[in-house]
């Protein structure tokens, strides 16, 4: 057995409060320089090129990337469906590379997994599907009845216990998948594109269920997806992968507010529209310097709208909002505004100075 990972104190960056109590950070899954290459037809494909990542206890950690980025490969090293070519994966203090096959099997009971295609047994009832991980072990008949009953009620499928998977909708199948993954009471849940086969409404309900799994069962979730919306809805931390490497990682808010790489910007754009409408450029042309058009990005309640009313009050300058949208990230408003300042040159300049001093990101559009 690997040594038990010591609890490490790390200084939390000052996150905008999201109501969660701040606790000492403890590692749940650590990737150290993980490499994975495949030989196929004489060529070597490097699916993972030295990934180092740390998933904390209690996280809903999202990994996003385009198709072929290596997300599934990375996820599958956590329960050893995939063996890294080099590097180490440490799960709840256990270094997987030194574990025997037997230990590995027992460790897997601590890791649940859900799949895009659900992977339920078509010849078994919902009840039997959920009971399967327990039947592989030595759990008594009575305990199985109780545990499966509890899980089915948790995922809202008590009535479907005796149905077969082909009698269920996609969302219901994924609920069965989640119940099955939780059967052995794991502390980690791996999710490989669990909502990619579902419509937006069903996706939302499954994501809500995953949040409950995280909160009520204290399960750390590592999920991979190619939809930024999924990250936005449930994750607290995110890593962006590109061609086998993590190119960016951090708190979801930070990455959304300030994406560093082209790939991250691309994903952020898919949920937070911040491109400048062409009408704004037309206006700019028509005004010929008589007004200033600003692109303001803000996070949190203190900024945005209140700031604009202050500007209007303090300066002899009119503020027109030309375009705006506000998205909520973990309960924190996150917005984009395009405003036009009108008035005398001097007042515009003063208003601009004032805005620059606020806790927002400002860019002049010209």
């Amino acid at each position, binding site marked *: 057995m690997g040594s038990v990972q010591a609890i490490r104190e790390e200084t939390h960056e000052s996150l905008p409060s999201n109501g969660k109590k701040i606790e000492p950070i403890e590692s749940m899954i650590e990737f150290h320089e993980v490499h994975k290459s495949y030989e196929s037809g004489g060529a070597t494909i490097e699916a993972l090129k030295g990934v180092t990542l740390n998933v904390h206890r209690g996280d809903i950690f999202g990994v996003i990337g385009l198709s072929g980025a290596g997300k599934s490969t990375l996820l599958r090293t956590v329960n050893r469906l995939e063996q890294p070519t080099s590097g180490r994966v440490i799960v709840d203090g256990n270094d997987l590379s030194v574990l025997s096959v037997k230990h590995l099997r027992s*460790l897997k009971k601590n890791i649940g997994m859900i799949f895009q295609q659900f992977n339920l047994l078509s010849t078994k009832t919902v009840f039997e599907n959920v009971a399967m991980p327990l039947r592989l072990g030595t759990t008594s008949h009575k305990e199985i009845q109780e545990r499966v009953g509890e899980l089915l009620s948790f995922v809202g499928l008590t009535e479907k216990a005796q149905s077969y998977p082909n009698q269920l909708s996609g969302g219901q199948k994924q609920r069965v998948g989640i119940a099955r993954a939780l059967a052995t009471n794991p502390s980690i849940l791996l999710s490989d594109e669990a909502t990619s086969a579902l419509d937006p409404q069903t996706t939302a309900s499954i994501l809500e269920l995953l949040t409950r799994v995280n909160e009520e069962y204290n399960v750390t979730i590592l999920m991979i997806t190619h939809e930024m919306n999924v990250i936005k809805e449930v994750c607290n931390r995110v890593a962006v992968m590109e061609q086998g490497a993590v190119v960016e990682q951090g708190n979801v808010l930070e990455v959304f507010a300030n994406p560093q790489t082209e790939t991250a910007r691309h994903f952020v754009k898919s949920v937070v529209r911040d491109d400048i409408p062409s009408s704004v450029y037309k206006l700019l042309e028509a005004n010929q310097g008589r007004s200033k058009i600003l692109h303001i990005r803000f996070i949190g309640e203190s900024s945005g709208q209140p700031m604009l009313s202050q500007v209007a009050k303090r300066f002899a300058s009119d503020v027109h909002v030309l375009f705006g949208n506000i998205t909520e990230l973990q309960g924190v408003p996150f917005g984009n505004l395009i405003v036009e300042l009108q008035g005398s040159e001097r007042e515009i300049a003063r208003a601009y100075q004032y805005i620059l001093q606020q806790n927002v990101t400002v860019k002049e559009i010209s």
Partner: protein
Amino acid sequence: MEVTSDQVIQAVYETIYMVSVSLVFATMIGLPLGVLLVVTRKGHILENPLIFSILNPIINVLRSVPFIILLVAIIPLTRLIVGTSIGTTAAIVPLIIYSGPYMARLVENSLLEVNAGIIEAAEAMGATPLQIIFRFLIPETLGSIILSITTATIGLIGATAMAGAIGGGGIGDLAITYGYQRFSTMTIVATVVILVVLVQGIQSFGNVLARKIRRN
């Protein structure tokens, strides 16, 4: 010269005897071989190039020998196993060797239909290879395996017709010796009807059973 009803009943009995005994043994051989062919292949749960590369060609060779030749070619082996090389019981040995590998291929094809995701889910749960075979692979394909056994059974009925060559008897033999060689139209018609009913019955039974297991 016409056949008596006693002869027909005797022939039906011989056919059923040959088919059912060889079916039991062929399944006992074919099922495990089919499973081995799947799980020892590259990337599968018990990957084993040695076993796979020995098993695969042997099955191909056995499958490519025509039954009538197999019947004669293995006479020494037959004598070794059942003590005689002629008669109904003696026909069972070549029938098993003929249909066992056939069954292995059919079972192999059924098992290969199982979605790789199912095996992945099983591995993620920490299932052992034996648990994967008996609790995931076989239950998921049982419907298909039943249909394979049905197909093999019908193949066996066809093969028993040639068992007459070593004095195995059976309906097929009756049709050839009385119907064909002694120009008895009645015998031909009667045996064909019996065979059609037999084959139809087995196929329907297999279909119903498979549908029940498959749940769709």
